[in-house]
């Protein structure tokens, strides 16, 4: 049974998500796509597979966002899979979730990354964020959720470029400050190259390798200039020495425990002591982390571990010292264990 990628289409109110979705669904390469819309009645999609999640904006803004969206989204996704299994729907091999314009997309990502009912059947695909080229800069200035939508994106799409009042260079600078690694694409009245938009499949090692190349470009800029926008910063932690797997685990656990929602996104390629030829690709959103994906080989001769952070009010220095301190303690324990084993052997 094949694993189905789930892409997220997000963006602030009126930023053109539905227009793009409407265009994409008319393209041949999107003919086998199921769509979940986070709001009822936003568009009359002429597509048999449209499933409307019962989450509303009001529900999403009360109580525990994760729990609210999880229950509903999980049920919707399970229903889609059941219909697919029972052969009562048109077959699909991709799902796109269009979020509400006011929604924080992170809980949706959490659901896809953690729900045991869905694990094995679905995998998180690309996160695409639309930005209105006319009003986007102002929206980013005012709306924290808009910053977050941009910060966690794999692709950013500028919309409404044909309208007067577009200040594209300024907007691009602002977007780069929030998320320097995500390619910025341009859509004209919803028209955009579909394969470019949702091109990555997290299971696909080759695609993952391509993603890594993108992150490395991000790291090169983010690391040098420590770009920032208000409280959100992008930076990279780079280590030349291979990292022990247990160090990485403790490091990620500590980040999850102490940073929570302030860790908007983490992506990295890691050289593990235990796997020198196959680097681990790690990927996390807030307090949730994917199990690592393993590349078949290093994408370049650069075998340093590089972890890119998009974080709110988390000092880079703390991240660096945390990794170093945990690494030193793990090495210390290993050395002591080796020493004890040696003494035991000599006693025998």
């Amino acid at each position, binding site marked *: 049974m094949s694993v189905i990628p789930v892409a997220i289409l997000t963006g602030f109110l009126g930023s053109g998500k539905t227009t793009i979705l409407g265009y994409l669904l008319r393209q041949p390469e999107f003919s086998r796509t199921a769509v979940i819309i986070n709001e009822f009645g936003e568009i009359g999609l002429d597509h048999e597979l449209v499933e409307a999640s019962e989450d509303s904006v009001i529900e999403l803004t009360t109580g525990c966002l994760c729990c609210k969206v999880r229950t509903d989204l999980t049920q919707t996704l399970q229903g889609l899979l059941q219909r697919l299994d029972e052969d009562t729907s048109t077959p699909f091999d991709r799902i796109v979730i269009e979020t509400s314009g006011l929604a924080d997309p992170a809980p949706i990502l959490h659901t896809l990354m953690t729900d045991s009912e869905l694990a094995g059947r679905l995998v998180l695909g690309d996160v695409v964020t639309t930005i209105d080229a006319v009003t986007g800069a102002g929206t980013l200035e005012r709306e924290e959720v808009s910053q977050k939508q941009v910060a966690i994106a794999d692709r950013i799409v500028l919309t409404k470029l044909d309208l007067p009042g577009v200040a594209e260079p300024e907007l691009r600078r602002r977007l780069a400050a929030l998320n320097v690694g995500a390619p910025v694409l341009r859509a004209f009245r919803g028209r955009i190259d579909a394969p470019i938009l949702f091109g990555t499949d997290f299971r696909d090692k080759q695609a993952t390798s391509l993603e890594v190349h993108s992150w490395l470009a991000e790291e090169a800029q983010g690391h040098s200039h420590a770009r920032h926008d208000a409280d959100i910063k992008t930076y990279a932690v780079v280590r030349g020495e291979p990292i022990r*797997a247990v160090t990485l685990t403790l490091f990620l656990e500590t980040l999850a425990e102490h940073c929570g929602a302030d860790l908007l996104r983490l992506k990295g390629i890691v050289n593990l002591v235990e796997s020198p030829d196959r680097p681990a690709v790690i990927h996390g959103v807030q307090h949730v982390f994917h199990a690592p994906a393993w590349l078949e080989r290093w994408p370049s001769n650069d075998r340093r571990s590089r972890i890119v952070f998009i974080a709110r009010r988390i000092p880079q220095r*703390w991240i660096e010292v945390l990794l170093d301190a945990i690494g030193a303690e793990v*090495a210390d324990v290993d050395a002591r264990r080796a020493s004890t084993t040696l003494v035991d052997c000599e006693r025998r």
Partner: protein
Amino acid sequence: MPIDLAHELLTQSLAAWRVVGSIRSEGDGVIVICGSHKDIQIARAPDDLIFRWIVTVDGRKRGAISLVAVLRQVREALDPGYAASRVRVAVSPLVPSP
């Protein structure tokens, strides 16, 4: 591991948690933190204990098996709004399957 590294980790941690406090190292390798009306001492545990660190908060001693555990105890003492996530993030498998 060098005590200086633990000292810097704790210093940076206070900044990351946005907790006001002062940190100093005593001559015997003990790190002392004062903040939020708490006095905290962090010392290496004796070799015959299973713990690596002993954290003393206002006179009450607790063992900590790692620096990660030290951080948790220090933050619980200094940051009343902190609720440690008990969810373990399983990064498995630790190595790729052959």
